[in-house]
């Protein structure tokens, strides 16, 4: 099989991505269906390093943020439709690091109605100080219930309070009903 123009383009695309990974200190990229098994495999990569490195506490938080973010996609991502077939739980995960911090970014499709709720909630969490975040967490822990989707409504609150950093989020409109939700957590080293 010779190189057609298309496959050459494909090779360039892969190579460009590889160069980008190195430049921006991206340590992990995954695109696809975030099943429970995939979540365990990806978080396992961080966990493997736990015993070896000096910033064990930081990596433990990175691990926790990844578990919570990936379980969110696993439980809540709207199906991605391709040629009439729905692909549930599809998402994107990117972990990057530099001297000062780790960054965990996820992307997945959400319904617009849900997007508004998420934006309001994350916006509210960003205005709260540590004590009020702790109080909200405890209130939800006592009064909340595990939903049929398997979450307890605690993930975002816990990421915000454990990292101590503002949550970074944005929505890109896909069509009249859905948006692409991009969520970034920063874990300071």
């Amino acid at each position, binding site marked *: 099989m010779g190189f057609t123009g298309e496959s050459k383009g494909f090779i360039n695309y892969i190579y460009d991505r590889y160069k980008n990974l190195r430049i921006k200190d991206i340590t992990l990229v995954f695109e696809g269906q975030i099943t429970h098994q995939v979540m365990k495999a990806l978080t396992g990569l961080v966990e493997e390093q736990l015993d070896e490195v000096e910033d064990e506490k930081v990596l433990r938080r990175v691990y926790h943020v990844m578990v919570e973010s990936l379980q969110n996609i696993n439980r809540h991502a709207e199906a991605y439709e391709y040629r009439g077939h729905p692909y549930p739980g599809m998402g994107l995960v990117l972990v990057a690091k530099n001297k000062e911090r780790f960054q965990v970014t996820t992307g997945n499709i959400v319904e617009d109605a849900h997007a508004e709720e998420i934006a309001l909630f994350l916006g509210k969490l960003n205005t709260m100080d540590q004590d009020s975040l702790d109080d909200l967490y405890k209130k939800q822990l006592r009064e909340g219930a595990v939903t049929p989707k398997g979450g307890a409504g*605690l993930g975002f609150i816990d990421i915000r309070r454990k990292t101590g950093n503002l949550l970074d989020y944005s929505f890109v409109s896909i069509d009249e009903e859905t948006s692409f939700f991009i969520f970034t957590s920063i874990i300071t080293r």
Partner: protein
Amino acid sequence: METLRIEQTDDSPQVILDMEDNHFELSGKSLPEDVVDFYQPVLDWLNKYSEAPLSKTIFNIRLIYFNTASSKLIMDILLIFEEMVGEGHDVVIRWHSRRSDDDMQEAGKEYEEMVGVPFEHIVFDK
């Protein structure tokens, strides 16, 4: 009461609920796919146990990781003990954390503040 023993996996903790040996323990990692499914037998066992418990119950929690969904179910377990304490039973939660794991130590203190059950905090090195 029949002993409940669940072996640990890479995403769920070991559970030992043994009335005969006075051994109660939850240890390992907790991030199962379905937390309710995993913890329901534990809650059922403890609810039944709480009707006629031992004169002193020491419940050991020795987790190295739990996700937020599990934290809710751990709360549910602690609330069963809170009720037992309210009925005059002697219950102690032994909360074990790695010395290097501040977040786990903090989580134990947070639970202690939230439920009316005495805690003993134990720190271990690996």
